[in-house]
């Protein structure tokens, strides 16, 4: 068994996959260096140095075989941060290289493919929920600020949605767990990676004067649009799982 150690980046992973083929490794696992704890001292390790030309060659090949959508699925699996992401991606790519004329991602009876399909479904669901549950709060400096804490790393997947939608206001979405965010400054929307965690404890003090009013209006609206005679909390919680409540202004 050979263990390929990569730096945890998307390109790193695909460089590693390139090298699996390059060095004709048979019995191989790919492991994120940060998560690597050597269990078997006799196992051989191979340090992967991220090289975008290698990763791009793999991605290009995959795009030929599986289309843009197929490649997008691998990205979603990567962003899921699933503990087996390297394994299922490698398995699918091996299958695709063997059967270049088939869309092996539709082979739903294969366990690894099915796992990819399941992960993609969960990631899609969460990015969709993020487009819904992000709540912007207007700050004194006119930036609309939102903090999120999703289970999967979905920021890269929702950037376009928000960039398309909000072009005439400055906004920022910040992932508390992963300590990075997107900032739109009326020109471009870019990722930013602060060196220290953003201090958000008393950020309410910096609210724009009108912010509290609109929050109250929204909370009143939320209460008033409910039909008491039809109350169904179980269904409510099913649609808005409790772990998302912390995002929601109406769930103050």
């Amino acid at each position, binding site marked *: 068994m050979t263990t390929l150690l990569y730096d945890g980046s998307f390109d790193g992973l695909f460089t590693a996959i390139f090298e699996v083929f390059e060095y004709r490794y048979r019995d191989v696992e790919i492991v994120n260096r940060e998560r690597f704890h050597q269990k078997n001292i006799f196992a051989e390790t191979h340090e992967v140095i991220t090289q975008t030309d290698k990763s791009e060659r793999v991605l290009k090949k995959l795009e030929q075989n599986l289309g843009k959508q197929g490649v997008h699925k691998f990205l979603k699996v990567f962003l899921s941060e699933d503990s087996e992401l390297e394994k299922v991606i490698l398995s699918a790519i091996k299958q695709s290289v063997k059967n270049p004329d088939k869309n092996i991602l539709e082979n739903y009876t294969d366990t690894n493919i099915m796992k990819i399909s399941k992960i993609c479904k969960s990631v899609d669901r969460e990015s969709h929920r993020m487009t*819904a549950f992000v709540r912007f709060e207007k700050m004194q400096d006119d930036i609309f600020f939102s903090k999120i804490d999703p289970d999967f790393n979905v920021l890269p997947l929702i950037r376009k949605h928000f960039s398309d*939608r*909000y072009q005439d206001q400055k906004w920022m979405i910040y992932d508390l767990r992963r300590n990075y965010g997107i900032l739109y400054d009326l020109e471009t929307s870019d990722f930013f990676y602060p060196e220290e965690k953003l201090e958000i404890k008393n950020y309410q003090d910096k609210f724009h004067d009108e912010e509290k009013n609109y929050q109250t209006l929204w909370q009143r609206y939320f209460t*008033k649009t409910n039909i008491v005679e039809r109350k169904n909390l179980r269904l409510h919680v099913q649609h808005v799982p409790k772990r998302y409540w912390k995002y929601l202004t109406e769930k103050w």
Partner: protein
Amino acid sequence: MNFDRLKEKLEILADAAKYDVSCSSSGGTRKNKKGALGDSSVSGICHTYTEDGRCVSLLKILLTNHCIYDCAYCVSRSSNDIKRAAFTVEEAVDLTINFYRRNYIEGLFLSSGIFKNADTTMERLVRVAKKLRLEENFNGYIHLKSIPGASDDLMQEAAMYADRLSVNIEIPTESGLKLLAPEKNRQDMISPMRYIQKGIIQYQDEKKILKKVPKFAPAGQSTQMIVGATNENDLQIIKVADHFYKNFNLKRVYYSGYVPVLEDNRLPSLTTEVPMLRENRLYQSDWLMRFYGFKAEEILDPNIPFLDLEVDPKLSWALRHLDQFPVNIQTADYQMILRIPGIGVKSAQKIVSARRFQVLNLDHLRQLGASVNRAKYFIDFNAGNPFLKYLTHQNLKKLLMGGRSSKFHNQFSQQLTLF
């Protein structure tokens, strides 16, 4: 802006609008322009859910709850002694924009009680939409209620600024409407719909020839029927829906279980329960017509004019047509696979893809996300299926109902996982 007064108005006018269920934002096609606000995606987004489990995607308000009419089923009716309020055009616009900027909503659903007359009311609704589009550069979703009897000119203008328009049929039968809303007539409701429908067809024709034509109600029309306020049966309701889908190209027909809020001897008593399960069955039937290729006549019979409350309409159809089963999962065409109980549109598509790689068995179906507990009695596999011996079993229905974890799980809303 007087915040306290605005808050009070919002409370009154959201409360009065809440019974209208036609509030999805799907079907929007408006792309944002550079530097402007808003974008409507085709599928729409539910930004939150009320405690009754219904999706909130639009700011749904009445412009006013003053009304000259006296429809028995409506809380805003003139003889009801309630607080009245009216938004100014500016207030409605301001709420929409500020809610949208905070990502609370996909847009606005604006309806109104009828004050003075149809045209005055319609004109005010149009002004809100116009201001949103032209002055605020807003490209989010706008749904306007067409006021029965509004003139063609105003409808024309409404369609230029709104994404969707709707007239609520409210009462499925003419006799019911006569009883509960004697001042209204079907013709007044239908004529604005007819006008918009013609406009949409003309717009589509022009679009084929010219590149740039102004948008005309791009998300189409919808309507709503109240269920259980009069004694109509389900067959009548489904027939009305079918008629509107076919003859008016409606995008959606909504069904709203009557919530008894008013004392009136023409109406069910205040203690009557909201017919939520019936409403749910109607939505399921509606899906069968729109996505599963079922015809209205297949769903209900004149002999049994009500939907079965125990089992969903697709299963009910299957139980009445056992001769069409078992369906061979490996060879049957997609349309027939769709008719297998327990298999939804997504699983059906996956089956058709996956069977090109492999001969499928029951485990595979489970993996694909089909509801195998139900499907297993109706399917044949190349390798055979031991459950088929129950297909002609007297107690098949019982067997199927016992196999469900929770009988009415997840069924009290229009946003459901169906089948």
